[in-house]
């Protein structure tokens, strides 16, 4: 599963992209965030407060309870601050 990180999610984890293989109990975006949080101290810090995390599947914003389809591109990032 291909996961992308942006802004301080990226800098806390220390990389912008990684390939992960979560267990089959990880079904939704929220499941994946909770699982990633356990992967390293950097992940733990990035996913420490899920209120601050937004997600996209295949480049569309999604809610935490969205199931992850097979072969999807998942991205985690802070609320946007553009313009």
């Amino acid at each position, binding site marked *: 599963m291909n996961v*992308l990180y*942006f*802004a*301080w999610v*990226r*800098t806390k984890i220390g990389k912008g992209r990684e390939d992960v293989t979560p267990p089959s109990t990880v079904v939704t975006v929220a499941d994946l965030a909770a699982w990633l949080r356990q992967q390293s101290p950097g992940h733990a810090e990035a996913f420490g*407060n*899920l*209120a*601050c*995390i*937004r997600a*996209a599947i295949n*480049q*569309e*914003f999604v*809610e*935490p309870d969205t199931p992850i389809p097979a072969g999807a591109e998942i*991205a985690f*990032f*802070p*609320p*946007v*601050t*553009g*313009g």
Partner: protein
Amino acid sequence: MTVRIQAERFDTGAEIDTLAAGNTAIGGVASFTGYVRDFSTESGVTAMTLEHYPGMTERMLEQIETEARQRWQLEASLIIHRYGRMTVGEPIVLVVTAASHRQAAFESAEFLMDWLKTKAPFWKCEETADGREHWVDARESDDLAAARWGGLPCG
């Protein structure tokens, strides 16, 4: 109907002229240019870097431009959003809309800017004169959506 994501500076005047040229159905052109403001007296910020999500940015900007064209009768429109490092006074974002009628041009330009601010996947990292960097917090309005996840302050 054009969307451009680029690191290079742009020239607001030249972009408006190009958009309006040759289409005599255009009665009015509205534009908005956003600049890197000087916050240095408050915070010491001298520059910033805009990170974005390549691919998703183009996709979202094209979606919203399509939405604007469905809501208003537009003759032409343009969105330019920069990414990368910018110093105080540099232009960041440009929206231009052209229509037969002035209200359509104004409303659609404002709609596009509101949307860019809240939905386009860009993140600002500010630099202070002492070389430190920090990520800019999202605006309050975003905290409504955040309530679905839980309720602690971000950091």
